């Protein structure tokens, strides 16, 4: 969530409500369960960490909570690091999905290239798992677990393929 919000701010400074709307749009029905306060709490944390600065916006005298947030240089660095990261420790589909949406919106990176980098990483892992599977004797219990890991990676790879199809079609105009 922290990284996704930072990346959204890379496009332009925004107030919390605007970020919430963009999150809702990117997540669709999956974002409905999102707690409204979550965005504000996260923004406050990011501000404390020096990754964003919040300034009171003009024109909302009656809404003192309406602060416009912008990335600090440290925040920008963190966004760049997040985009370059190809870790997939626990597949967090929403996080990756938001990364692509934010990258496309702010023209920070080509989403298709992010997908490709991720795909290469997952294929390397799948290859490693697959070689381990092949080395297991028939009926091995460890083989069963490896099989589960391989199937999960395979499902992730298929989803990445779908991501690539969509983002290569929409180019940089999405989200």
């Amino acid at each position, binding site marked *: 969530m922290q990284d996704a919000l930072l990346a959204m701010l890379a496009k332009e400074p925004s107030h919390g409500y605007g970020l919430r709307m963009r999150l809702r749009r990117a997540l669709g029905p999956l974002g409905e369960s999102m707690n409204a306060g979550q965005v504000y709490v996260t923004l406050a944390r990011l501000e404390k960490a020096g990754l964003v600065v919040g300034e009171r916006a003009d024109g909302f005298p009656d809404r003192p909570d309406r602060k416009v947030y912008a990335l600090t240089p440290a925040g920008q660095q963190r966004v760049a690091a997040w985009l370059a990261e190809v870790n997939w420790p626990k597949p967090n589909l929403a996080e990756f999905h938001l990364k692509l949406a934010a990258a496309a919106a702010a023209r920070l990176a080509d989403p298709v290239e992010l997908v490709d980098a991720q795909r290469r990483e997952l294929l390397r892992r799948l290859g490693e798992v697959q070689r381990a599977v*092949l080395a297991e004797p028939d009926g091995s219990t460890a083989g069963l677990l490896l099989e589960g890991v391989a199937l999960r990676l395979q499902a992730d790879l298929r989803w990445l393929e779908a991501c690539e199809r969509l983002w290569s079609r929409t180019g940089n105009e999405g989200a």
Partner: protein
Amino acid sequence: MNESGGVLRVRGLCKEHGEGQGLVRAVDEVDLDVPAAQTLAVMGPSGCGKSTLLHLMGGLERPTRGEVRLDGRRIDTLSERALARLRRRSVGFVFQAFHLVEELSAAENVELPALLAGCSPRAARRRAAALLERFGLADRARHLPWQLSGGQRQRVAIARAIANEPLVLLADEPTGNLGTGATLDVLRLFSELRAAGQTLVIVTHDERVASTADRLISMRDGTFVDDTRLAGSNTGRLGGMIGLGD
């Protein structure tokens, strides 16, 4: 080995179907070098041209433009007769649907290429028996294809494909008709062939097959969109993948 160092060398390869408005470039200006002993996987959505590429590299189809060299020798300009001989001796094919001769036993299917290449029946028989033994099919040698499981049939087909020790083995969706267990059997065979130095090109849409290759090419609309080296990349993170550690 030849001066280019590659078993397969492809330059500016094009294959067009139809004409005018209906012109389709199945393979569109492709360059490729496959070094000896490499296992190359080619992935892509159906219709991306990957099977056509394989057919062009094995002399099953002729390109519209461009050239294909096998061990330094240009094959796209060969006569039909020379091409047929090349396919019998220097290229091994494995297909999704096995393509075994249904009237012949497993052993007879494997003997066939050696016989067609002019081997004596005795030598062909010996070679087939050795291959079936090596592939764990010795007790299936006299079975007809319909008496074998899908995985066994594909292993017979692979034995047949390498019977003449081809320069390159070309496999088109070799696990497309197989379940998980049989897929693993075929992958075990491929990794054994690779260890023995066989050059291998596999067209597949199965990520598990592709991931075990040394190199992976992704194709879209007749061209390569990605070329990734996968070999020997043990990340040491197997534990992390199952939630242990990190």
